[in-house]
């Protein structure tokens, strides 16, 4: 074997190891969650943990009922989706189908910027603006509530939903659109009845990824939901304070002693979160794979589904709906049930079921809508009833039926199109407005605090005075180190996936690892970093632990962009090089990588931006509140902009001016990174000649 062949094999081995790194990290994350979390189930008890409704870890005796927290996570995510899905879909349709191609570019840029704003900045904005607005306009005691959390999460998951849905809608073959237009359908009829249904699986993927984004979000949601671990009363009370899993972890992990039942309970919560996210990501992955096939292959022969199968399917569907409805009823009436006497209780239950069946029959048979929609409407009207009472709900119902009839029988297709397009345009305005408001608010309020001293001095008086210099340095060190770790691994993994891997089991494992690492909530990275680097490897809270944790977090981003950039290089380049007798690695290194460099660098900068803005992963792993002297030792803790901002907002009264300043510096830093990445990418696309 020649030297060349040997080094080829050596390089391939290194690439494989890097490719596997994501899967290995996922394995370790799961391992450490299980090691630290499973003891909780024996200490607390399975049932008490999942069904207990009181979370009082510091009381004597303590109780660890996680039901309100798990339900809180689900509720706040559900609320976010109710807002984000319609707006996001409408915006995606607008960008894909209505926007002129010049405006399209700017809109896509705006949405990427929205995705780049750090979650702590959203939280800061939410706390100071959104919750105040809610408090005043709804006359509440406190504006921190479920609704505030859902609104913030909706804004944060919009970019994911919009960009994935937009891709799916744009991917629908233009022939479908032409065929429909040629029949004389209006543009809106074509969109609603042909294009959107054809893009359905992609749209569902978008929604699921949006859910994944919302459910794992920590800092923003923690700052605006009020964080009381209670079930809302009634369950539809959107002004109730709630507390999601992520917020619980971020709030309490800093205060527990290692190895205590409380510590284990927090990791158990993290397991629950991780499992939810795992399920969501798996479903999304399956759907994405399916979508790739949908326009290429003929669907399977439909004859396989016999009558019995169909009936079974309907039965299962029906059962699921019943479960949903009864869960809803139970959650609302749980406290009420335990106090009333059994007789009136059963009467009420029978009454409710009777009314439910009646309304269901009304929807199903008179209005001829499907089971799904009748159950949906049933729940909807029930929610309205808890908010507005009987009379108003009936009025709203009549109003809705009227609108429905108007659309169905009176208005012309052209007029409906005009209404629909107005709504689509409106939703894109809402999205751009959100971006503008958040950025403008931080810039206007932060600008006065910004000065040379602010940028170059250490903080004093608990951060009320002085500057943020150590935090800037700390953030740069953290993000730079993360880039070194995640970037190097990610580029090698991307090269492996694009150039060396073949479809097969190994490839599947690597991709599953990447997908799951990509979907892992940032707070789980924080927990892992704490349990593994800080405690297990005895690093202590330090710079290095933070760099490694952030590096693992940005690994999937870098890998994906690298792989995409390399795959975009035409095969003729490789063939040209290979035909001259170059080895595979020589070809990759000398021909493919230079050609793909702008794309790879874009990915690296995006990763850098993400590492800069993240708070949750470094909160317990790398940062301290105050640092007198800047040390460059990797085993010392550092200050960082996001965590500094968090401490100022949550722990230091009267520090608002400096908090604004810190938020502005952080925002500018992240936006500069994103800006560079975007400029680089657009130049690269323009000068690309192949």
């Amino acid at each position, binding site marked *: 074997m020649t030297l060349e062949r040997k080094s080829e094999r050596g390089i391939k081995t290194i690439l494989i190891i890097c490719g596997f790194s994501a899967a290995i990290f996922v394995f370790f994350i799961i391992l450490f969650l299980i090691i630290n979390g499973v003891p909780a189930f024996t200490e607390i008890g399975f049932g008490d943990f999942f069904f207990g409704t009181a979370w009082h870890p510091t009381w004597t005796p303590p109780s660890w009922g996680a039901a309100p927290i798990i339900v809180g996570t689900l509720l706040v995510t559900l609320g976010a989706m109710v807002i984000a899905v319609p707006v996001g879909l409408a915006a995606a349709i607008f960008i894909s189908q209505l926007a002129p191609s010049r405006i399209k570019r700017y809109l896509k840029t705006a949405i990427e910027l929205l995705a780049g704003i750090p979650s702590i900045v959203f939280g800061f904005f939410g706390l100071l603006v959104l919750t105040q607005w809610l408090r005043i306009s709804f006359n509440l005691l406190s504006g921190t509530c479920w609704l505030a959390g859902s609104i913030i999460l909706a804004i944060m998951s919009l970019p994911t939903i919009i960009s994935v849905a937009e891709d799916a809608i744009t991917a629908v073959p233009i022939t*479908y659109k032409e065929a429909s237009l040629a029949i004389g359908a209006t543009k809106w009829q074509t969109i609603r009845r042909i294009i959107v249904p054809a893009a359905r699986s992609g749209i569902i993927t978008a929604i699921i990824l949006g859910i994944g984004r919302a459910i794992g979000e920590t800092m923003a949601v923690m700052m605006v939901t009020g964080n009381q671990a209670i079930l809302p009363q009634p369950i539809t009370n959107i002004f109730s304070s709630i507390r999601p899993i992520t917020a619980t972890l971020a709030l309490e992990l800093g205060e527990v002693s290692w190895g205590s039942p409380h510590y284990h309970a927090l990791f158990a919560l993290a397991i629950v979160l991780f499992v939810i996210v795992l399920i969501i990501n798996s479903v999304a992955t399956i759907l994405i794979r399916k979508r790739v096939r949908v326009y290429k292959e003929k669907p399977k022969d439909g004859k396989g589904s016999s009558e019995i199968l169909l009936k079974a399917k309907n039965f299962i569907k029906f059962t699921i709906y019943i479960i949903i409805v009864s869960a809803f009823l139970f959650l609302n009436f749980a406290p009420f049930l335990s106090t009333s006497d059994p007789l009136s209780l059963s009467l009420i239950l029978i009454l409710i079921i009777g009314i439910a069946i009646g309304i269901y029959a009304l929807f199903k048979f008179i209005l001829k809508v499907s089971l799904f929609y009748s159950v949906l409407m049933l729940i909807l009207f029930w929610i309205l009833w808890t908010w507005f009472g009987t009379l108003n709900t009936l009025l709203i119902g009549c109003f809705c039926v009227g609108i429905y009839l108007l659309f169905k029988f009176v208005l012309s*297709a052209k007029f409906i199109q005009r209404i629909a397009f107005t709504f689509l345009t409106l939703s894109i305005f809402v999205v751009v407005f959100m971006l503008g408001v958040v950025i403008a608010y931080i810039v206007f309020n932060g600008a006065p605090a910004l000065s040379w001293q602010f940028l170059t001095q250490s903080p004093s008086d608990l951060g009320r005075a002085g500057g943020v210099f150590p935090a800037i340095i700390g953030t740069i060190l953290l993000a730079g180190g993360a880039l070194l770790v995640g970037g190097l691994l990610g580029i090698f993994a991307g090269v492996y996936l694009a150039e060396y891997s073949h479809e097969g089991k190994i490839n599947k494992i690597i991709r599953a690892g990447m997908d799951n690492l990509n979907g892992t909530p940032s707070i789980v990275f924080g927990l892992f970093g704490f349990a593994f680097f800080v405690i297990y490897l005895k690093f202590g809270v330090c710079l290095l632990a933070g760099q490694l944790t952030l590096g693992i977090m940005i690994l999937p981003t870098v890998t994906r962009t690298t792989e995409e950039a390399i795959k975009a290089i035409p095969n003729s380049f490789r063939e040209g090089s290979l035909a001259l007798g170059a080895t595979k690695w020589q070809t990759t290194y000398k021909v493919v990588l230079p050609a793909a460099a702008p794309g790879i660098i874009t990915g690296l900068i995006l990763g850098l931006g993400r590492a800069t803005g993240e708070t949750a992963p470094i909160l317990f792993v790398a940062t301290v509140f105050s640092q007198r002297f800047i040390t460059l030792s990797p085993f010392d803790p550092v200050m960082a902009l996001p965590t500094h901002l968090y401490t100022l907002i949550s722990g230091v009264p009267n520090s608002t001016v400096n908090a604004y300043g810190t938020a502005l510096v952080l925002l500018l830093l992240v936006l500069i990174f994103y800006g560079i990445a975007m400029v680089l990418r657009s130049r690269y696309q323009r000068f690309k000649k192949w």
Partner: protein
Amino acid sequence: MGANPNGEIVLETKDLNVFYAKSHALIDINVETKKNNVTALIGPSGCGKSTLIRSFNRMNDVIDGCKITGTVLYKGRDLYHEYNIEEIRTKIGMIFQKPNPFPMTIYDNISYGPSVHGINDTKKLDEIVERSLKLAVLWDEVKDRLKDNSLELSGGQQQRLCIARALAIEPEILLMDEPTASLDPIASAKVEALILQLRKRYTVVIVTHNMQQAARISDYTGFLYMGRLIEFAETTELFESPKEDLTEKYLTGRFG
């Protein structure tokens, strides 16, 4: 075959010019088609025949950066200004080069057109589906599987389904953009036979790559070259004694 020279003129262009972002696709086209005739447009690839047929039902509007000058008249009225776009496309149906059924059931493919035009009654829709499929000579092949996905049909069946879909909204004119180009010879023959049948009830404009096909099925033929209409005449006349030198060269296979 028998052209119908006394038929009313239904489609007519006057100095029609079509520009794409970077090219001038049609130059000063003056052409007319008469009712209940089959008019064929022939010419080499890129000569503008598809562009011309697409300007008859405003499908060029879908393409970014497309600009049109001159007039197209439908029954004597300006097709681009005196009708609304959906109305035109309802009256003037179109069949595309590649069969493009929607990814839904056979039944839904056909009922889609009537339902977007406001017909929601199930019985009526059933009737329309049956009638359209019969007109497209597809009914016997698919009557037992109307609820199957249309993508399970063969290419030729898909194309006839697309014809049935166009017929379901009772158009007056059918535009066909190389409807047999992507089909095998047997499927092509079936579609051709269908076109000859449809001629009795509809006015057909067909773009074809295949000169023999034009000769077999059309009453009038127009020859386009480099964006210009070189010659337009009754099919027999054009094929037997072309007036223009270019036409003769093309027909005898000396270029194209």
